[in-house]
C-alpha cells in the first residue's frame, strides 16, 4: 500500500499578516514558513499507519505544488518521516490549479490512500482534497477524524453536523482529514533530519492550467471597539449591558 500526503507551505500560525502592493500581495518579509497544520497531522497519521507493519504500508510520499523556495518545508516533511516527495514546480495558484497540477503529477503513481488536510491556514478554502479526488475519479471522504486499515480495507470516521459516521471505502480514495486524525504532530528527530537530506524530491514540470478564481485585494479586519470593562463584582451590570446595549438577549 502506498500513501500520499498533500502538503501546503503556509506562514507560521502566529504570523502577523501584512500586505504590500496596495493590499494585493502578502508581505513575505520575515515570515517563517511551516507545513500547514492539518497536513502535518495527516502526515503524522500516515506515518503511524506505516509504523504498524500489519497495515502493509510500503511508502509515505508527500506532494506539494510550489517553487524551490518550498523545499525547506518539504525537507521538514521528509525529516518527520516521509520516504520521498513530489514537487510540481510552479508558484501555487488558486485551489483548482493546485488540485489539477497534483492530479497530473500523481495520476500514474498508483497511490492507494491520499490524505489532505481539511483546509490550509492561508486561504482557508477547504477545496484542494475534494477537487483532487474529482480530477482522479476517486471517492472522497471529508471531515475525517480517524483512518484505520482493517483487513486491507480502510475504515474511516467522518464528522458530520451533530455526530459521526463510521464507513468503509474502497481504495484508491482521498480522505480529507481534520482534528482528531492524529493526537500531536510528529516531530523530526535528529536522525530524521540527517536522512532527509538524502531523500528524493522529484521535481515535475507543471501543466498549463488556468485558474478559475483570483484574489483582487486583501483587507484587514475591522478593528473592534475597545473592550468595555465592568468590575469583578458587577456581573449584574455585564448582563444588563448585554441585554440593553448589545441586545443579545
Amino acid at each position: 500500500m502506498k500513501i500520499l500526503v498533500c502538503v501546503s507551505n503556509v506562514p507560521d500560525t502566529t504570523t502577523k499578516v501584512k500586505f504590500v502592493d496596495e493590499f494585493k500581495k502578502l508581505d513575505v518579509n520575515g515570515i517563517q514558513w511551516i507545513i500547514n497544520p492539518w497536513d502535518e497531522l495527516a502526515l503524522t497519521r500516515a506515518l503511524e499507519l506505516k509504523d504498524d507493519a500489519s497495515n502493509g504500508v510500503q511508502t509515505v510520499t508527500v506532494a506539494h505544488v510550489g517553487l524551490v523556495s518550498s523545499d525547506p518545508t518539504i525537507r521538514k516533511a521528509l525529516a518527520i518521516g516521509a520516504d520521498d516527495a513530489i514537487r510540481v514546480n510552479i508558484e501555487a495558484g488558486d485551489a483548482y490549479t493546485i488540485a489539477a497540477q497534483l492530479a497530473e503529477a500523481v495520476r500514474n503513481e498508483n497511490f492507494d490512500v491520499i490524505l489532505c488536510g481539511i483546509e490550509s491556514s492561508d486561504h482557508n478554502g477547504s477545496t484542494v482534497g475534494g477537487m483532487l479526488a474529482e480530477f482522479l475519479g476517486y471517492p472522497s471522504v471529508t471531515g475525517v477524524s480517524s483512518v484505520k486499515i482493517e483487513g486491507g480495507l480502510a475504515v474511516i470516521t467522518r464528522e458530520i453536523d451533530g455526530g459521526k459516521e463510521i464507513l468503509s471505502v474502497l481504495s484508491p480514495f482521498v480522505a480529507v482529514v481534520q482534528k482528531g486524525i492524529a493526537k500531536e504532530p510528529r516531530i523530526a528527530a535528529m536522525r530524521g533530519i540527517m536522512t532527509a537530506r538524502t531523500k528524493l524530491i522529484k521535481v515535475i514540470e507543471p501543466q498549463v492550467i488556468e485558474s478559475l478564481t483570483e484574489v483582487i485585494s486583501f483587507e484587514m479586519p475591522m478593528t473592534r471597539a475597545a473592550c468595555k470593562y465592568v468590575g469583578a463584582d458587577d456581573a449584574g451590570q455585564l448582563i444588563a449591558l448585554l441585554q440593553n446595549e448589545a441586545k443579545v438577549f
Partner: protein
Amino acid sequence: MSVLVFLENWDGKFKKLSFELVSYASKVAEMLGDHTVALSIGKVDASELEKLSTFGAEKVISIENETIKAFDEQTYSSIIAEVAHKSGAKVLILSNNNSGKALAPRLSVRLKAGVASGVSKLPASANPFVVYKKVYSGKAFANVEIKTDIKILTLAQNSFELTESPKAFVLEKMDIQPDSNLMKTQVKEVQKQSGKILITDADIVVSGGRGMKSPDNWGPLVELADLLGAATACSRPVSDEGWRSHDEHTGQTGKIIAPNLYFAIGISGATQHLAGISSSKIIVAINTDKDAPIFEAAQYGIVGDALKVLPKLVEAVKEMKSK
C-alpha cells in the same frame, strides 16, 4: 437561469442554517435577476419543504431516491451537477460545513466552476463577480473574483441573517438514478450526539479555558449555559487535557464558530483560539490577566478570577430571567 441552493436535512428536518442558505441564495438571485431554486436530497416532508419558500425559494426540487440514503460524496455531487445543468444554475450555494466542504470542490471540477468558500456577505459586485471571504484564519479578508460562468459559494454558518421573502410553494419531485458504480463508500454505523445544542448551531456559546483550573469546576459554567440556552465549548488545552470532550474544542484546528454571543471564560486568547471565534458578534472575556489578548478581541470584559465571577454571573442571569 437560476441560483441553486443545496440543502441537506437532519432526520428529515431542516435547521436554521438551511434557512440562512435560502435567505442568502434568494438575495443573490435578486442581485442577478435570477430565480432561486432549492434542492433537497433525501426524505423530507412537504410541510418542511414548504418552509423553504418562506425564505425565498421560488422552486423546491426534492429528490427522494431510496438508493441514495447515505451521503456518498461522488454520488451526491453527480446528482447536484445534473440538477445544476437542468435548472440552468449560474450560482450554486452550499453550506461551509463538512457536507459543503465535501461537495463544493467536486462540483467545481465537474462544472468547471470557481469556488469561494466561507463567504459571509453578499457578492460585492455581480460583474465581475466578486465575493468577500475570510483568509489567514480571520487575520485578514480577501476580495475574490470568480471568473467562470458558473460560480460556487459556500456560506459561513451564522453569518447571514434569516430574511423572510415568502414565495408560492412550487414543488418538483425529481427522480434521478445515481450511477451505482460511483458508490464506493459504505456507511456502517452512525453515532448521533443527542440532547445537546451543537456548538456550530448555537446563538450563544459559553466556553472555558485553563483558567477554570480543574475539570471539577465546570458546574457553574454548564449552569450558565443551560440558563442561556447556550452550547458549552472549551479551548484546546482543556480538550487536550481531557477535561472536556474534543467535540467542544473551538479554535483554528477545532470548531470555527460565529455565534451572536461568545463567553471566553479563563481563556487567554491565543491566535489559534481567536481564529476559531473571531467571527462571533459579541465576545465577553473573563480573565485574571488584564493583558491577556482575549481582551483585544472582546467587547466586554471582566478582569477577575473565572471561578469567582461565574457564580455571580449565574445569579445575575437568574435575576434577569425572573423579571
